[in-house]
């Protein structure tokens, strides 16, 4: 039994756990079930903590941009404020609209939450620190993240509220149109690696900062820019957060949600932000590669750097209007990314890339 998730740094811990499991005398198939359940719980736990940390971090960044303090009450600079918030949301009354569509209303946050976490099956947190290295890696992530849209549509419909419905429809239109430039930006990298597997993509960038695709590829920076714009839109963050848009749609699709259901949407949003940042790091910034520090630290550090960029976007720019958003995608991003692919393909064909 080889642990699929075991980096050089964490291997001793995992092998010890495995021996412990084996000593209980479980048959092999059941052992695998236990192992994978344990892994799922581990990834889920780590990601929930990461999301909570991101919430806190975003509040801190926002506060300091605006020359405030942000949360300061719980612990050092309020570091466990978000945990307390989560506990509070758990305890809160679950307010349900009487005219809601019961099934849809209930399942929407669940689908959103699950979809947000599904992507982490193929994201390598460090060298060998990956649950499953699928050969369709990046395509798989693109595929499962579309469930977020379904969940937003479900929330919009299930709430039986016009604002929520508008939010859901906006999100559908937005995500469908930004998926195209996002995939097209990713293709530029995939073209050079020749594989969809996440591990292969990262391995191709081994050695030195100049091997990172943002520097190494022709038009790498442009691909990164288009990717990060499309990713901001996919993660529903300002300046593309029109499905929520407090000032227009009050809170869009999650206007009728409260308590734990709201918390699920909220956490999923931050997990999504982390996902797109992690993909950006894997594609353009060399994934876990880096000197001295353990690989997972490099990965997390780089990802938080990209998340910081997303946060700066959020707290600097006004929000686009819904039709301008579409126009921007179809009239600017799509042509640019397609041209980028053609140029990159030419480079690849001619063997010019360095």
């Amino acid at each position, binding site marked *: 039994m080889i642990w699929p998730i075991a980096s050089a740094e964490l291997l001793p811990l995992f092998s010890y756990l495995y021996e412990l499991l084996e000593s209980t005398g479980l048959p092999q198939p059941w052992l695998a079930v236990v192992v994978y359940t344990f892994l799922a719980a581990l990834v889920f736990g780590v990601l929930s903590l990461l999301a909570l940390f991101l919430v806190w971090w975003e509040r801190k960044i926002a506060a300091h941009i605006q020359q405030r303090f942000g949360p300061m009450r719980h612990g050092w600079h309020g570091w466990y404020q978000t945990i307390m918030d989560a506990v509070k949301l758990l305890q809160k009354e679950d307010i349900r609209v009487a005219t809601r569509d019961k*099934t849809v209303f209930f399942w929407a946050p669940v689908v959103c939450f699950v979809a947000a976490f599904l992507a982490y099956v193929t994201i390598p947190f460090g060298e060998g620190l990956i649950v499953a290295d699928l050969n*369709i890696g990046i395509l798989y992530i693109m*595929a499962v993240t579309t*469930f977020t849209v379904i969940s937003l549509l479900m929330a919009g419909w299930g709430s*039986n509220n016009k604002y929520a419905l508008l939010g859901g429809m906006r999100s*559908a239109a937005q*995500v469908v149109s930004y998926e195209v430039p996002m995939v097209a930006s990713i293709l530029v990298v995939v073209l050079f690696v020749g594989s969809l597997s996440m591990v292969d993509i990262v391995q191709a960038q081994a050695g030195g900062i100049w091997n990172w695709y943002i520097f190494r590829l022709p038009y790498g920076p442009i691909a990164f820019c288009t990717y990060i714009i499309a990713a901001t839109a996919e993660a529903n963050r300002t300046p593309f957060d029109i499905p929520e848009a407090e000032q227009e749609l009050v809170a869009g699709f999650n206007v009728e949600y409260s308590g734990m259901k709201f918390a699920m949407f909220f956490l999923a949003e931050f997990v999504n932000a982390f996902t797109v940042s992690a993909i950006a790091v894997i594609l353009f910034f060399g994934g876990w590669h880096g000197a001295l520090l353990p690989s997972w630290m490099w990965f997390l550090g780089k990802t938080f750097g990209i998340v910081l960029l997303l946060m700066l976007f959020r707290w600097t720019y006004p929000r686009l209007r819904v039709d301008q958003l579409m126009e921007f995608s179809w009239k600017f991003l799509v042509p640019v990314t397609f041209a980028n692919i053609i140029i990159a393909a030419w480079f690849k064909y001619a063997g010019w890339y360095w």
Partner: protein
Amino acid sequence: MLEVDGGIVFWILSFVILVSGFMVVSLKNVFHCALALVLCLFTVAGLYILLDAEFLAAAQVLIYVGSVAILLIFEVMLTSKLADKRITQSNDQALVGFFICTLFAVAAYLLIKFNTIWYPLAKSALPSDNILTIGKYLMTEFMLPFEVVSILLVAALIGAIALARTEKS
């Protein structure tokens, strides 16, 4: 990877496929039907993975769930009002239809099971990297259909825009 008997997974998946598929054609609320369709298509993707077609599974989810189902849901939202009275979806011939379809299914099953001689292949395994192979096929043997499909897609895109856009007076 996970060493679970493929048989159990198949039965679970097919159960979900059939139940959700029946929900698609029998539920009163069109929105619920669309969601059932999403579930059905997603489980079909799981079936593809069992059949060693990972790329097809990903494409299924990406295209069906990510685009077609969203389009359908969008359409439902555009065309039926919220808090609408449930739209009548079945007609008087439902029972007859059900009977005919059951007959069709039984006949098909009998044909498959008893009346056809299948030639089970010598277990020459599928290509290990099926994405690579599909890519090669699309660029060599199936080049022409591939291009034709792309033209079809463009035509569909333009056609849809032309149909749905409002005329500026």
